[in-house]
């Protein structure tokens, strides 16, 4: 121990330094635990609120079967859209996040349903392939690959009777990416886009 360290020990004893170090280590550990909790348990609150709003609207406006819903600028069915969508455009509504939601509540109880979502996937020369998956009330309901050749094909979801009889159907569409057309040299739009939804058909699922 040199003179400087002896002097330091006199004015700042080792126990105090250990206590401080322990406290700082504890604070660091607390950050890690809190961050882990925040990442694993947090749910996008804007999406959650939009979903709730869409479900509330759906409950107040229960759909008969068959029905056709239209989405886009000044369409009343936009209220059935949950979180993850841009403001409606003239020709439909673009997704702005990888996960988007549509709330559908049909006359209950009901036999199997067939839901067709008429969409256009945003695929461009620089991003020619998009994987889309759908789930209803967290139950997988289909997956598709969209390319420049089939970007406009509809997404057909088969809803079994067990699921169709649920109080509410919250459809989640997941795309493996979103991108801005501007960034991909496909147009001036600098918004992040996934799929364009312009209508949905809800029909009886019996063959």
């Amino acid at each position, binding site marked *: 121990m040199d003179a400087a360290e002896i002097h330091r020990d006199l004015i700042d004893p080792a126990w105090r330094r250990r206590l401080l170090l322990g406290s700082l280590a504890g604070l660091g550990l607390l950050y890690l635990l809190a961050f882990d909790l925040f990442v694993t348990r*947090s749910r996008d609150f804007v999406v959650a609120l*939009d979903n709730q709003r869409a479900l509330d609207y759906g409950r107040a406006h229960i759909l008969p079967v068959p029905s056709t819903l239209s989405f886009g600028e000044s369409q009343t069915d936009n209220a059935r859209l949950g979180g993850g969508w841009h403001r409606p455009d003239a020709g439909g509504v673009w997704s702005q996040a990888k996960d988007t939601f549509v709330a559908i509540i049909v006359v209950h109880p009901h036999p199997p349903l067939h839901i067709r979502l008429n969409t256009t996937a945003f695929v461009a020369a620089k991003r020619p392939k998009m994987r889309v998956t759908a789930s209803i009330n967290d139950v997988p309901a289909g997956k598709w690959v969209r390319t420049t050749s089939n970007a406009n094909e509809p997404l057909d979801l088969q809803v079994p009777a067990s699921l169709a009889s649920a109080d509410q159907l919250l459809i989640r569409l997941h795309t493996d990416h979103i991108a*801005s057309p501007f960034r991909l040299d496909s147009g001036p739009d600098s918004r992040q886009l996934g799929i364009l939804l312009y209508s949905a058909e809800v029909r009886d699922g019996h063959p």
Partner: protein
Amino acid sequence: MKRSVSVRIPDSQTVASSFDAVATIRHILLPISAIFLVSRAALLLIGMLTFTQIAQEPEPAGHTLLSYLCRFDCAWFVGVAQHGYSTIPAADQPGATNFAFYPLFPLLIRAVSPIVGGDAFFAAVIVSNLCFYVALVYIYRYARLLGLEHTAALLSVALLCILPHSIVFSAAYSESSFLLLLVVAMFYLRRENYLVAGIAAALLSATRTTGVLFVVFAIAWIVRHGGARALLLPWRAPEKLVPVLFAPLGLFLFWAYCFLVTGDAFAGPSTMSHGWGWYFLPPWSNFAEMLQADDIRYAFALLALGLLAGSFMLLRQGLYEEFFLCAALILLMSSGAVVGSLFRYWLVLFPLWIAAARVLEPRPVLTAMTFSVLALFNGLMMSAWTLQKFIAI
């Protein structure tokens, strides 16, 4: 009989300190006050002239000179101070909630509000200007700490007052509180007062997310002054780590609050994404995109790259910690896909302005030219701010 008379003679220390106080006021505080007041008055005058001579619409009822200090995000900050946080989005901006605004500035407004009769906007203006004035004093002291002469240090202060868009330091915005806490944290770290530096850093990250990048400065400072040993053998001098570990505290507390209230610790980024269309892009990708644009983004990209290049001045002047901090802040600020607000985000990079002052101080012609150009652009930005143009968001 001889009467003894007791005369109190001030000791030499008292004389020296009272002389110091007078000298400080005369040579430091007076010039800073003058720079502060003249620059603010000039900006308000430009605002008034813009409104009366250029604006299309007439002044709304109850409009005063101070109304020019409330534009864009002002209502959000004042709203948080008055009513607290709310998950209800703005009527005309789906997904936009006040969780995008960090809590320290609104808390300060709320604290001052009762003193000014409950007027939250007036309180915000007072807090903002007070913070800015104190920040200017600390920037002067910081510049002196870095070895700048008196004139160069005052030049740093003047630069900050005259930079384009410096009106935000007097408006109901959190820039001035951010600037103050940043300079205080850096100043006291350099003075090895770790606790004060740590507390300022914690408050800094409660003012804006980017405040957490103070950690970059602190780590660079520790490594430079204690070597890598200081980090690898922390038990030798744990007090040096206080600012590093305190810095994220404000951010984590706000995250915890958001988590409890909304179930989403990252309510800020969530609402920024849905309400303002903000999303993260790596800076290189963002720069490439901005440079392709044929609108204001192109100018922003050039300016950001210019600032990044300018931050190398800090390296040349041996201000390595400041360089790492400024570079990290510029890169982080350039990683958002929404470029609005970049001007005011850059203003707080005061080490850059100190370095610029050091370069300018021995060159009076260059100084005059620089100040003339900056003053013109500051006037232009003030007009844009008054008229609520996009560039001044």
